[in-house]
């Protein structure tokens, strides 16, 4: 049953929303036992929302029939604030933190009758591509097809749950590929929108100039539906785009005939697994059969310098964003002793995970006097060059194609062997569009099973 049909059935009283939500929450608990997709299941909030909808339906409330997400379960990446629901961004340092306000996207989901079911697991603050860098005390989510493999990251819980749970759409978040890459590993659709299209108000920051909230779903219709709900101008986010809202569902059935598609030359060949390459080419062929015109394009700068540029900017920004967590106003605390500096150090040392510490150190270094010009400012300049190169490419093409990830989901035992740099390389296809603020979408083309 599509979500569209599901909503129709809710509106026509064919499905009892309270009963349905209750079952769905039980299903989440069951799935979570094996896969660890949810850090928090907001059972009370979900059931209360369901009861509220049921009452309004009974009272034949006029507005209820127009709600775009009526009764649809929406999971929320743990980095997105939901009022009064524990929100940690996957970090021990925010354990038990309950936000004072809803993120913009949460307000929108609620307004349209969506039911928030819980907070999905992720790499701590989004720092990773395999969801293995979860915070201290958090569980690693597992691939829905093979529990020995990664479901990707950092929105790993969101992508895995999207594959496993029906009548559900996930809110993911991406800084360097954290929506599309886990979507690819879990065989679902993930849309990372244009920077500024979706308000970041209420998103716990990783890197402010890169972070984007976007939908992940089993069907492209689900992704388009949630995208229509969460996009739009928000006065509380200065980087929000003040342009007219779009109905993304209206674009779904448009033919691809005559579309020009650029195949990024550097995204194939060396370092790309054979199965990945084969299946992506098959996908391109399908598009060509539908009348799209595909042609190769070289985008050397973004592929070659994307990782370096991205990590300089992202860690610089992240290291300032994480400064606020010091055990003083909210989140984890330690025994109060020593000077403020000693206390802050103790809180941060014992509550941040290794990758968070690594990125704080990297980012602090990149913006230090004496290194700032060579790293942070240089990266900002390369970013401008990358944007120009993409602009040039989009003069000729309507869309660019590359594999989302160059490999199939790796086994946890193999991930352990990776050096931090090899770990960072998983983002090679996805960081560049993020650095340029471009939208990108993961389209599953084939399921490879070993």
């Amino acid at each position: 049953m599509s979500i569209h049909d599901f909503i129709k059935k809710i509106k026509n009283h064919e499905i009892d929303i309270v009963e349905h939500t209750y079952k769905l929450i039980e299903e989440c608990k069951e799935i979570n036992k094996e896969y660890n997709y949810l850090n928090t299941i907001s059972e009370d909030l979900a059931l209360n929302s369901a009861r509220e909808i049921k009452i309004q339906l009974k009272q034949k409330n006029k507005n209820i029939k127009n709600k775009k997400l009526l009764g649809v379960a929406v999971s929320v990446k743990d980095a997105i604030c939901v009022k009064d629901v524990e929100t940690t961004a996957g970090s021990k340092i925010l354990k038990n933190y309950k936000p004072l306000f809803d993120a913009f996207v949460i307000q929108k989901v609620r307004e349209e009758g969506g039911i928030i079911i819980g907070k999905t697991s992720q790499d701590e603050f989004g720092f990773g591509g395999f969801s293995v860098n979860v915070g201290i005390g958090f569980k690693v989510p597992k691939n829905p097809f093979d529990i020995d493999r990664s479901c990707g990251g950092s929105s790993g819980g969101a992508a895995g749950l999207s594959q496993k749970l029906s009548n559900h759409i996930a809110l993911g978040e991406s800084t360097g590929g954290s929506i599309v890459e886990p979507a690819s590993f879990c065989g679902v659709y993930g849309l990372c929108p244009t920077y500024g299209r979706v308000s970041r108000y209420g998103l716990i920051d990783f890197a402010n100039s890169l972070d984007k909230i976007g939908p992940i779903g089993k069907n492209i219709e689900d992704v388009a539906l949630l995208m229509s709900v969460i996009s739009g101008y928000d006065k509380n986010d200065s980087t929000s785009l003040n342009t007219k809202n779009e109905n993304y569902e209206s674009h779904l059935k448009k033919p691809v005939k005559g579309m020009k598609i650029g195949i990024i030359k550097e995204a194939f060949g060396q370092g790309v697994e054979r199965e990945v390459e084969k299946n992506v080419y098959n996908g391109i062929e399908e598009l060509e059969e539908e009348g799209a015109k595909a042609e190769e394009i070289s985008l050397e700068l973004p592929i070659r310098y994307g990782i370096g540029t991205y990590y300089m900017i992202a860690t610089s920004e992240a290291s300032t964003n994480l400064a606020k967590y010091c055990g003083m106003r909210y989140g984890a605390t330690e025994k109060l002793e020593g000077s403020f500096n000693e206390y802050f150090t103790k809180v941060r040392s014992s509550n941040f995970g290794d990758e968070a510490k690594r990125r704080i150190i990297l980012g602090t270094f990149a913006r230090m006097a004496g290194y700032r010009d060579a790293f942070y400012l240089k990266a900002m300049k390369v970013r401008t060059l990358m944007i120009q190169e993409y602009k040039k490419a989009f003069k000729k093409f309507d869309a660019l194609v590359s594999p989302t990830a160059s490999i199939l989901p790796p086994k946890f035992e193999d991930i352990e062997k990776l050096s931090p740099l090899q770990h960072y390389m998983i983002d090679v296809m996805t960081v560049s569009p993020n650095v340029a603020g471009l939208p990108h979408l993961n389209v599953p083309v084939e399921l490879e099973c070993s």
Partner: protein
Amino acid sequence: MKFKSDIVIGLEIHTEIDTKTKLFCSCPTKGSEEPNTRTCPTCLGQPGSKPVLNNKAVEFALKLCLALNCKISPELIFSRKSYFYPDMAKNYQISQYEIPLGKSGNLRLRNGKEIGIIRVHMEEDPASLIHPAGMKESAYVLVDYNRSGNPLVEIVTEPDLASPDEARDFMKQLITVLNYLEIFDINEGIIKADANVSIKENEYTRIEIKNITGFKEIERALNYEVNRQKEEAKRGKNIEQETRAWDSDKGVTFSLRKKETEEDYGYIIDTDLTVVEITGKWLNQIKKEMPELAQDKVKKFIQKHKIKKEDAEILAAEKELAEMFEKVAEEINPLLAAKWLRRELVRVLNYNKKELHEVEIDEKHMIDLLKLVESRKITDNVASKIMEKLIEKPFDIKDYVKKENLEAVSDISELEKYCKEAIKENPKAVADYKKGEKKALNFVVGKVMQKTRGKATPKEVNEIILRMIE
């Protein structure tokens, strides 16, 4: 660097600007004094909160840049200044770094010297820390975020100031500008300075003094520091570059840290905020709204009211005084008005340790009073006394003069009567005068003034007595 003066001072001034709401959120800058009540997720640095720029604050800062003759940046860009401190909600302060809003400006001192302004930039105020048992002794510190996120403007001068007195005057002139622009709350606004002080005797080794609050303190702190450095030099001590703090209660500076390198704040662009374009159109709009400043008033007073430059400068130095003068000069001879406002009113205010905006006296009182002086209905003496009383609490001057019978004695026969009495009552003084002690006459004149309660002019009394004695 070559310095011309023996003392070299540069200032870094932080001033609050008087917007209704904070720089990056809509919390009020004034209101409840109960700690942590004027706060929201943004000024508390809660995860997920985002800053949104207050355009009014930008306009205020632009006005200041224009008044200080700065070159204005075409773009407003904010940076994050990172350091850990308990008064920082985010452990970074949103400030400006590479490209300040204004640069290369200047401000003229009373002595005519022009002081260079290196930069003017905007930033947010941290929270306030309260040490319940004193700064060094308290076992704990309380944090009040009511102030967190208030808009500040930082003004950095060239090291052009050659004495603590000049530094004080710079602050005074700056406050005058802020006051004219109406961007500073003169009653509650806080103005703070850090000062770099170096003296020739120490080869101009730079010492930074932090945390001097208010323009009167600056001279005290700098005088102390200059003397301290001179003493050290006399004793042959080699002064190292260091950062010191001013303890206003004890009247001393004390060492905070000897620093070998500049502090590293790891500045990056704050990408939560967009680059704000300062368009020509916007700037023109602001230029149109710019009020007359002190130098405009001085010119106008000299040209229109024909008063002396020196008087014009003193009147213009304070916005309230200048505005009062303009209104009074419409009804009273400007020369008389200037004399009374810049001498008597300022004298009485200084004596009472008050500023004009702190007292209730207004232009109507001055006009009433000076009309009586102009028409010689009361003597200067009586007018001065009335002014002293007015500062305490205003009243209707005409009624008061009538009720207290203070009108000048213009009837010569009445005056002659008082003089005759005084001569009779003080034969010794009269005799002394006749012996050649000219001063003795003043004593007799004083007695007559007493009898008339100041309602006669000393000159007139003097003439009558002389005539009677000789």
